[in-house]
Structure formats: C-alpha cells, structure tokens
C-alpha cells in the first residue's frame, strides 16, 4: 500500500514499428498463369522503463495495556521519507525481425482437366534481440510442383533447399524432398455406381525426407574450443588465474539431422455427408540426432567440475515413431434433437533405433526399446526372514533386513545392482501411447448439453515422491499403515520402516510402478437460451444461463495416486454457474 502511495512511479514504454512492403506482379504476358510475389518486412519492438524510486518511512505501533485497555504507547519508525529526484531508466529491450520472401507461382488448367501448379520460393528471416549475441535465422529455397487430373489424381512434389549457418562449412546446405500422391476414388465410375453412400473419399500417400536445424541448439557446436575462463587456481595466496579448459571436441562432419516420413491415409464423407471419417498411418524416423556421445569415449573426456569436455557433438541417435490416428464426426437430427458426436484418437509407438551405449547384458540396451522407457529392478516381494536374505543374491544397496524389497537377479551373477535394471514400461513422457478424445453436443429446443472427455492409456508412472518414499525423520503418510512387520508379513503392502535412509527400497522398481491409464470427463456444460422468455424487454438481445464443470470425473485404476499433488497446490474440480447476456 505504501509502495503505491509513496514509492514513486514507474512508466513502462513500449514501441512497435512494423514495416512491410511487397510486390505483386502478374506475369501473364510472359506466360499465362505466372505470377511473382515478393515481400519484405521489418518488425522493430523496443521497450524500457522510466522510474522515480522514492523511499518512505514506515511506523510500527507499540501496544501497551493501561489498566486493561490496549493503547499505543509509542511508534517505531523504520526508514525515512526521501525523494531522490533521480530518474532511472531500466529494462531496456529491443527485438528486430527482418523477413523476406520472393515467390514465382504458376497455376494453369489445360483442357479443363489438367491442373498444373508450380511455386519457387526464396525465403529468409532473421531475428535479433538485445543481449543475445546470435540471431535466430532461417534461409531456404523451396520448389513446389503439382499436377492433378480432373481433381481425381494428384501428384505433388515439394522440395526445400535449406541453408543453416549452424553447420560446418561444407555441410550447410541440404535438399529436403517430399512426394505426395492422392486419389479421389469417389470420383471413379465404379465407386459411383457400386455404392450410394459415399459422398467423397480420397486416399493419400506421401513420403519425404526433411532436413532441419531446429534441434541444433547453437552455432559452432561442430567446433571444439578452449576457454580461458576455467576454474581458478592460485599459488601465491590470492595470486593465480583461471585455467584453460577444453569445452568440447571437433566434428567437421556434422550434418543436418534428418526426418524420414511416410504417411498413408484416407478421408471421406458418407451418408449424405452426415458421417465424416479420416485415418492416417504415420512412420517417422528421425536420424542423426545430435548428441555428445559420452559412451564412445573414456570417462575422463568429460567432467562436470571442473567443467571440461573433449567430446564432440555427433549425429548419432535415431528414433522411430509409428502410429495411427483417426477421427470421426457424426451429425444428425433425430426429430428435434440435434446430435453431434466427435471422436478422435491416436495410437503411437516409439523405438530408439540407434543409441551410443555400452552394456554388459543385452536386456540393458536402450536401443530397440521405447524412447520413453522406465528402467528399473523387478521386485520379488519382501524378504521374509534372515534365512531368506542369506539364500538370496546379495543386494548391493546397503544392508538389508527382513521386510525389505527383494529383487530379481536378471543376469544371475549373484549380485543385485544397477546392471539388473530392465525395461519396465512406457513412461508416456511425450504423451500417452493411446489417446482418445470424445465430444458430444445435444441440442433440444433451447437446451444444449456439451460433453468433452479424454482418455489416456498405456503408460506407467513411479510412486517416488515423499508421500510414498517415507523414511528417517520425514513425514509419514497413510501408505505406511500396512507396512511390513513380523506380524503382518503375509499381508504387508509397504516395506519395513526405517529411521535411516533406505536405498534398497526407495529406488525405481516395478514395486512402485502404477498404471497411469485414465479417462477424464474434462468438461460438461448445460446451456439454456432464455432470450425468448424475455422478448418483451427489448434491450436484452440475448440471454442464456449455463452450468458447467471442468475436471469433473476421473475414471482410473489409480485415482488416489493420479489426483494427489505433493508439495504443490492440490488439483481442483471446477464448477461454474453463469448468466450470459448481450444488450
């Protein structure tokens, strides 16, 4: 409050300048259908703050009780009222974007049926921002060639010739071609005559190779370098200087990471266009992702402190994503009830097709497994007795007692350690493997009901927060009620409790794993349009009342885990009653 009243003021100034200019030329004199378009744009944004910062005094009352009445006996003063009269300019910032493109396009139809289109584009843009040394840049040439016969057969070729200054000198350009084919099968005679319910059906296929520098985080990462700003070392009690540290190795052969994509699909309208269906199969292989492959070099080639690395960035990792997505939309009037149902879903699978890694046991290789794999030990229940411990493989995560989790020795070497960790399941970190979304709209006269629900399936989580991993002097949650003791050994669901830490129990294993499958009713809304009821009051143009809720319901096997937040605000259900009026 005091800051508002006496703290001075702060003026924020922001200016934007936009300039854009273009040429549009119809070159039909040279060739019918040929056009040229060019555009050049500059955006300039700048902002800064001007402020007067004043100090002000605050007072603390000292209360005393005088014959049973509390009165202020004195005031403590903190700070002084002072106006410096100095204007401060701060937070100055600018951003400039320059974009340019030039485009030749050609579009012509011959003999009513042969449509030919072509485009040649040169495109570049650059964005510079205050206090950021390198600019965000993009330069490429694009070519599009398209042909369709009577809007029945389509052939399209797209090629982009991209240039990136982030790559080493001889590898800065690459061609990214894409070829697409489509067949509007519904236009064929045999489809017309054979079936009556197909209004439109198109089959598509495309394949392409994309080169992109989007995942190349910085300039010059192909080049090794030494910094003179390393760790300081002194030899004369205060005299010394910073070490010269290598921060990465050279890779003059760095190239664009590639994405090879194949798409097959169909889209169509059926039954007097009341049903719309589409489906696609996709396969996307990203190859040559840039990593620092530490496992190809000795461990001493890199260290966190002092910061040092001789390891170059190389094109190494390959990932494969395959999947299908589908969509359906159905719209129908059933008497006075207007029904609209939508459904869409995606199923995908990931695979790490190439990784730089070395393991002793085959089952440990990440290559060939899902990218979002959860890796951990497999549990065999609890140790029942000291005898059980003695007869089992040695667990190398600290001393074990009866009631601790017993793990499976995958490689049979008699020791349980991190080499016994296996692939346990998909973590779903890039979205659950199977997602389905549904929406339903029912309209009856003035009443509208809208539902939206989403389902996510196929991934797993690990119960590894402080609610589930309780030990030592931490807070104990209800999960420990059914802990292991001699008496409850047959029914226990939680390991024995310990006043120490327990690295043996509290580590990633399938003991702590749960399915994150869930079906959420994300939104439900009931709307009633009351405009007609109030028709006499002319100044109200529209009036409706609604009741809605968000995150109403979660149907899942593990509701208690999924709906629990630890260390942050709890999850909420949200209900809303409202009136909407237009005057």
């Amino acid at each position, binding site marked *: 409050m005091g800051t508002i009243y006496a703290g001075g003021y702060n003026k924020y100034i922001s200016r934007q300048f936009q300039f854009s*200019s273009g*040429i549009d*030329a119809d070159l039909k004199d040279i060739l019918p259908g040929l056009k040229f378009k*060019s555009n*050049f744009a*500059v955006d300039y944004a700048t902002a800064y703050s001007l402020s007067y910062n004043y100090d002000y005094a605050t007072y603390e009352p000292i209360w005393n009780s005088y014959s049973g009445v509390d009165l202020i006996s004195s005031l403590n003063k903190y700070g002084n009222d002072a106006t410096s009269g100095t204007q401060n300019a701060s937070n100055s910032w600018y951003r400039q974007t*320059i974009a340019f493109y030039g485009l030749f396009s050609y579009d012509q139809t011959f003999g009513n049926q042969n449509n030919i289109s072509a485009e040649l584009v040169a495109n*570049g843009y*650059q964005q510079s921002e205050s206090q950021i*040394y*390198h*600019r*965000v840049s993009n*330069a490429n040439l694009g070519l599009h060639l398209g042909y369709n016969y009577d809007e029945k057969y389509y052939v399209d070729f797209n090629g982009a010739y991209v*240039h990136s*200054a982030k790559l080493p000198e001889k590898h800065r350009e690459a061609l990214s071609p894409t070829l697409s084919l489509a067949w509007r099968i519904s236009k064929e005679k045999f489809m017309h005559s054979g079936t009556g319910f197909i209004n439109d059906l198109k089959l598509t296929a495309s394949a392409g190779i994309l080169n992109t520098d989007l995942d190349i985080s910085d*300039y*010059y990462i192909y080049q090794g*370098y*030494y*910094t*003179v700003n*390393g*760790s300081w*070392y002194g*030899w*004369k*009690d205060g*005299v*010394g*200087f*910073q*070490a*010269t*540290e290598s921060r990465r*190795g*050279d*890779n003059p052969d760095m190239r664009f990471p590639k994405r090879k994509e194949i798409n097959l699909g169909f889209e169509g309208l059926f039954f007097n266009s009341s049903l719309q269906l589409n489906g696609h199969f996709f396969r996307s292989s990203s190859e040559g992702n840039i990593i620092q492959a530490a*496992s*190809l070099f*000795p*461990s*001493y*080639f890199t*260290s966190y402190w*002092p910061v*040092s690395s*001789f390891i*170059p960035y190389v094109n190494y990792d390959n990932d494969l994503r395959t999947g299908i997505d589908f969509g359906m939309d159905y719209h129908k009037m059933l008497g006075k009830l207007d029904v609209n149902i939508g459904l869409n879903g995606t199923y995908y699978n990931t695979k790490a097709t190439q990784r730089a890694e*070395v*393991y*002793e046991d085959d089952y440990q290789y990440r290559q060939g497994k899902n990218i979002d794999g959860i890796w951990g030990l497999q549990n065999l229940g609890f140790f029942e007795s000291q005898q059980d411990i003695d007869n089992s493989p040695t667990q*190398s*995560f600290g*001393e074990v007692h009866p009631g601790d989790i017993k793990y499976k020795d995958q490689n049979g070497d008699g020791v349980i*350690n*991190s080499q016994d960790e296996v692939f346990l399941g998909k973590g779903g970190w890039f979205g659950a493997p199977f997602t389905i979304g549904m929406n339903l709209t029912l309209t009856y006269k003035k009443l509208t009901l809208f539902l939206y629900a989403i389902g996510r399936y196929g991934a797993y989580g690990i119960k590894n927060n402080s609610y589930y991993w309780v030990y030592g*002097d931490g807070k104990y949650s209800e999960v420990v009620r059914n802990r292991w003791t001699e008496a409850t050994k047959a029914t226990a669901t939680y390991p024995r409790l310990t006043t120490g*830490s327990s*690295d043996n129990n509290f580590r990633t294993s399938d003991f702590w794993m749960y399915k994150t499958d869930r079906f959420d009713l994300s939104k439900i809304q009931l709307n009633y349009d009351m405009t007609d009821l109030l028709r006499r009051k002319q100044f109200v143009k529209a009036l409706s009342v609604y009741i809605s809720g968000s995150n109403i319901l979660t149907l899942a096997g593990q509701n208690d885990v999924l709906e629990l937040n630890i260390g942050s605000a709890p999850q909420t259900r949200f209900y809303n009653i409202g009136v909407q009026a237009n005057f």
Partner: protein
Amino acid sequence: MKNKFLIYLVLVAILSSGCKDLITPQIENNRQLQESYNPSDAKFPYGLILNGYTRIPINSWSFNDVATDDAVTNDKSSSFLKMATGQWAANNNPVEQWSNCFAAIQYINLTLEQIDKVNWAVDTTVSRLFNMRIKGEAYGLRALFYYYLLQAHAGYGQDGSLLGVPIVLHSQAVGDDFNLPRSTFKQCLQQIEADLDLAATYLPVDYKDLTDNSQIPDKYGTVSKEQYNRVMGKTMSGLLSGRVAMAIRAKAALLAASPAYSSASGGSWASAADDAASIIDLKGGVAGMAANGLTWYGNASEIAALAEGQNPDEILWRSNYSESNDLEADNFPPSLNGKGRVNPTKNLVDAFPMANGYPIGATGSGYDSNNPYNSRDPRLSDFILVNGDKAGVNNTVIKTAADGGTNDGLDRTETSTRTGYYLKKLLRQDVNLSSTSTTTQRHYKPLIRYTEIYLIYAEAANEAWGPTGTGGHSYSAYDVIKALRQRAGIGTQNGDAYLESIKTDKDKMRILIRNARRLELCFEGFRFWDLRRWKAPLNETATGTSIKNNQYSTINVENRLYQDYMEYGPIPYSETLKFSNLVQNKGW
C-alpha cells in the same frame, strides 16, 4: 520505378544485416590450440597445466575416514557411509580417481605438447627458464596423478598379475584408440620415477628469491638472479617444486613397498626410506621436526602471518588460504550450531596411548575404564571432543553423554554424535557460528606435511633396517618415533619407558609406528588407504561410548561390510565395458 526502389531497399536491408548467422555464423571467440604463442598470450597454454593443479585429489578434505574404523558420519546420505556398509561397487565408487586423474593427465600431456611452441617471455633467457619450470611442473604433476591412480585402482587382475593403470603419455583426441591395456604396477612405478627424474632436472628444490648469481644451480646455465627470481622466485612457492617431487617419490615408494603390492611392484622398504630421508635431510634431520606441527591447523598467529604462498615450518606443500567456516559448520557439535558430521569412534579413542606412553591395554598403563579420558595422550583432547570437553569461542562444555541434556548428547537429533565423540582436529575453535555473530577464520589445506614424510621414513626404515637401524642415514625409525612422541607430549616423565621397552622388537615397533601414523594423520584421508596398503582388517566394527548415569558402555555403531577383494579399488565399471583391454581387478 517503384519496383526498383523496393528491390534496392531489400538489398540494402539484407546487406546491412550482414547476413551474419544467416549465411555464415557470427564470429565467436572459440579458441583453439595454436602452432605458436606470443608472450602476451602465454597465459593460454599455461592455463592448461592449471587443470592439473585444480584436480589434485587432496585439494579439499574428503573425510573418507568415515568409511574406516576411525570415524562414522551422522549424514545418512553420505556416499562414504554407503560404501562402508555394503554399497561399494565398480559402478558406485566414491573413492574413484580414474576420471579426475586421467583428465588431469590429458591436460598435462596437452601442456607438454605446447610448451616448446610458446614464447613465454620477450626475454629469451627468461622464456627458456619458464620452459624448464613448466616442463618440470608438468612431469611432477603427472607423477602425482599416477600415484593417486595406483592408490585407488591398482590391484591383481584375473590372471594373478599385479596391474596398475594404462600409461598415457600423449594427449588423446577424437579418433584415437582408447582401448588401452593396463600396464603393470611395476611399469607404472617406473613411469612415476622417470617423470620425477625429469621434474628434478628442470625444477629448483624450492622456489625462493636468490640474492646472488652464484646461488643459481648450474642446470639453468648463465642467467642473472633477476631473471631467475622472475621465474623460480618465492612468488611461485605454491607451485610444484623439486622438493614436492621428492615427496611424491617417497609416497609412491612407500605404496610400492607396502605388503599389498610388494611382491610384484619392484619397490623396496629401503628405497622408500632413502626417498623420505633425502627430504628429512633437507629439513635438518629429526631435529628439523616442527615443534608446533601437531596443531598446524590451529596455530592462529602462524596462520595469520601466512603470505605469498610461503609455508609454515610443518608444511611442505599447501593450498592457498581462505577465510571460511565450512569445516566448523559441518563438524561443530549442534550446541555450537554445527552439524556434528564426523564422529570419531571409540576404536580411534582407544588407540591413543596414556600420557605415560603405554597403550591403554598394556600392563602398567594405569588406564581406568570408568574414567577413560584421564591421564591420556594430550593429542586425544587436541583431536577429539569427549564428554565434558570444552569447545568453541566461549569454551562451552560439550556433554556427549546420552543423558547429557543437550542436543550434543548421543543420538539426540540428526546432528548429534552417533559415537559419543565429536571431531576437534582441523577445526578452529575461534570460529563462532552463532546466527547473530557468525565469524570465519583463515584455513588452508596442506597437500603434504613433513610429519607424513617422517612417518614414511619410520615405517620404511623399521621394515628395512629394524627399529634402530639407520641404513646409512643419521637417524633410525626409533629416533623419528621418539621425536614424534616427545612432540606429542607422551612419555616425557618416564623417559618414554614403553618405547624403550620395544625398541629391539621390529614387530611391536611396526604396530607402534602404524598406530603413530593413525593418530598423527587422523581425519586427513590416510587411514582408508593405509588399511588396504597394510592388508589390515577392514571390517572392525565402528564403536562408540554411551554414558548414562556416569556409567560408560561400549556400543556398536556401524558395521563395516567390506569383502576380501576390496583391499584394492575397482576399475570403473563403465570403462571396462567400453574398453575390452581394460582388465578388472579380481573380485569386482
């Protein structure tokens, strides 16, 4: 006309933006190694060797003592605690030196490859002297890192041969063959000695300012004292000197002569004793032992006077000093606002003899188990806080008894002692950690203390020539131990009767010397490797003292779960997977 204008504008805009980052990347100061370096740029190649200095494994306190019978820690997440209680593995090795030391060696090799390309100074004579000194530093450091590699990773391979580590003498780069086999321990030792020989040919024994041209060693040729002092003068005294190289040789020789390695290392006790003696001779024999060397960490006026990298009497090589209270914050008892981390064990307390020089279990010692801290070796109260001792700026009485009533009592809170003892050594009692008046004090980390050198001599000479044999030197193991005990203030009233009684018995003397090493160097990171070097029992349960109603009872605090093969450290698991020629030590 309009079109032309626009095209012109576009061109100007593109040219003015310079195409930087669009066509070619904007320049960055990414420095590379060069074919030659100017004097003004000599910092760049010298900065490479600093990567050796910054990686010296003993630059900071490790307190791996808490993984031995000397101490435990109350930090339940300590990696040393986990190692000592059964988690030590080739892929979980808190005492690993592999990555750190080989990284240092990589930089040292890089330095050695650059040195001759550098004009270190405009004056060519000075440049030549720099060239020599830096070569000497590099060879000395490389030997140091190979020593620490041997200590942490040497061992018997599957075929029963005593292996060291791969010997890498050139910098490695992308495309090199990294699949190098381990050389034998003996070859590594020879490499260390060869590097130290080279270091000795380049380095002066000490960095000090000479006052006359005649004092300049012949190996530097015709140079003036000004030129010499500029390169090898006293301002360089924190760098690796000829004397440090001699100390590294003695340390390596002791390791090689020790029971765990002696059968195949090529080392001998006599050469270890000779190597140590050459430093002791420079120090002035047994009489040169620093009188205040026992409490080097707390000699306030001596530490306050430290300047320009000069060493106190006790110190052979040290790090720069700094003002801090980190050690105290970690290890002071809770009532002095510390975390009470390192808790000395009763095993260690019992290792201190009586003030009369007798071990507490010996007849005639006068030890009273109901009054155990009475008439004990004065070092006990110097190094360890026992129940009722005073500590801190206000000489607060620390009650470690279980019924002592404060948080300093045994197992009271998570920062209380687990053994009934707190650490006192290394800590400055004049540090105040109270939240209202927190103070710091000057600390430094010794890299090599003369006491260690004396103890190397005592251990090696006793084995080589017996307790009173001198091997041609002017002092024996007995003489050294006697001086150390006198400095500690034990046996001063009875002519050290106990030492006299065993001075003809080599075996008893060995036990005494090892115990002296344990006490003198406690908490300085020696015990963990000494136990392994001696093939001593690793699994002595760490015990403590519980005091209730003034009754003393011994409690078991923490088991030590080392397997037999853990006498030698493991080769890092990840490296053995990557490089098939890298043989793992037996058992790991």
